[in-house]
């Protein structure tokens, strides 16, 4: 066999493997989606006490039942995304442009939570931090797992940024605030948007910390999913899963568009 034939064979096998892997990962999601839309007997009873006949009624039921958890998840995400950016991005810039004694250590410390199991951190938070409302403990737990993503994404972007623009602005007499507002932030905007998307995706799906920290009134939607899976019939659980996925899919596509290579690292499972 010529090396060209071997290479072609190699390439075809590789593509086939990749397609197979993607299909294997998608298959259970597609079957679940079918469960929310199909009326086949196999998928089980659609009614859940209330009469749930049509698919739209099914989703209506899910949103009615889990509305509060959805709202809670929305509130958590709305607090976590801006806080993660405000805390993480200036530090990431400083680590590269204004290093100080101990800045390397602090940067390393920022990613440590990724190797701490969420249950362990959640338990320790409950035990050691008193007088803080549960909602903010939950936000703190989410921040611990999302800040590393911001520090890394923005840090990588600063590294590739041409520092001469900042210096030029300084020579021309621009103050620090003006330089930040007119040079640094606009140049870092893609990485800031990417960070925000990553933080959103992680925070929206986070379960380990949320479930332990959640009081019955503070259930986030992933914790609500757990209750759905253990108590509701299959079509209701399937519809709830689709409601969970609805914001995730566009965010993931946007992440790919912004080149989110660093996405993978340390998302809590």
């Amino acid at each position, binding site marked *: 066999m010529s090396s060209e034939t071997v290479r072609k064979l190699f390439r075809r096998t590789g593509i086939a493997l990749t397609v197979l892997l993607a299909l294997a990962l998608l298959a259970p999601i597609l079957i679940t989606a079918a469960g929310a839309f199909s009326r086949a007997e196999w998928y089980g009873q659609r009614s859940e006490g209330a009469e749930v006949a049509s698919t739209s009624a099914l989703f209506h039921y899910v949103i009615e039942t889990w509305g509060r958890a959805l709202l809670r998840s929305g509130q958590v995400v709305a607090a976590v995304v801006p806080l993660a950016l405000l805390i993480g991005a200036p530090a990431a810039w400083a680590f590269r442009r204004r290093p100080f004694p101990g800045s390397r250590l602090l940067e390393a410390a920022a990613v440590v939570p990724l190797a701490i199991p969420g249950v362990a*951190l959640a338990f320790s938070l409950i035990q050691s931090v008193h007088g803080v409302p549960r909602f903010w403990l939950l936000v703190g737990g989410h921040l611990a797992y999302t800040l590393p993503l911001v520090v890394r994404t923005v840090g990588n972007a600063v590294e590739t940024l041409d520092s001469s623009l900042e210096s030029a602005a300084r020579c021309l007499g621009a103050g620090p605030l003006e330089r930040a507002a007119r040079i640094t932030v606009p140049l870092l905007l893609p990485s800031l948007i990417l960070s925000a998307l990553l933080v959103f995706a992680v925070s929206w799906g986070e379960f380990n910390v949320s479930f332990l920290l959640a009081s019955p009134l503070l259930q986030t939607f992933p914790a609500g999913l757990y209750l759905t899976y253990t108590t509701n019939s299959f079509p209701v659980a399937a519809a709830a899963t689709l409601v969970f996925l609805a914001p995730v899919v566009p965010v993931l596509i946007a992440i790919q568009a912004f080149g989110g290579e660093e996405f993978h690292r340390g998302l809590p499972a």
Partner: protein
Amino acid sequence: MTPRSHTAASAWTGALLSLPLLLFLSVAVAWPLAHLVGRAFTAGGGEALGQVLAAGRYRTALVNSLGLSAAAAAASLLLSLGPAWMLARERFRGRDLLRTAISLPLTFSGVLVGFLMVVLLGRIGAIPKLIEALTGRERLSGMAYTFAGLFLSYLYFEVPRAVMTLESAFRRFPRELDSAARTLGAGALERLLRIGLPLAAPALRSTLAVTFSASMGSFGVALILSRRFTVAPLEIYTEMTGFLNDDVAGALCLALATITLVVDRLLSMGQRR
């Protein structure tokens, strides 16, 4: 301004900008973890730690977590090598679509993955139903609730992590090295052994670190699927909420976090982030 005072001022600016991060990490990570370690030195905490480390259900849970996470990390690495290479180094139609599809499970919480496994391999799962329709015999029904089901679920959320970690490493491989070796007459095997593997070793290790840490902390999958085979995060939850035994829960947390952190550090030793 002298260069010296300029550096000092710039260091102060840097420290000031990083202050919120420092404060957050101190209050929400360092303090709780120090508290967790401190528990081990109280009377109840010390006793509980002894209990957790002695032979019994707690140690079994820790060993189970360790074994399951290590096995799933290794298996997901093997499964991901080919696809990650293809996504990083080859061009073909639909590549971006495939990448998005593979990255989708990254955002799934453990309970969702557990539920998907029930959909596939539960008592009336899709695969047993399919087998029954094709062969008329009932096979694999309820496999989701066995060790195999748990293992497959861990693979499900680890494979996307492994593919994405490997892909970004493969992308940074210098192509020139390989072609230079080829020009110098090195065969495919030699190129793999002397260039490919040494270049890939850090990526392989960081992939193992990422997937291992994610599995050690995973809790939702076991919450849905675990019947007899228990894992440490599940035991922590049970001790905390079921038995209200904070000493044992704390000791388990400490042991689990220590094991995960040590393995993670060992795997990423000598590497830039």
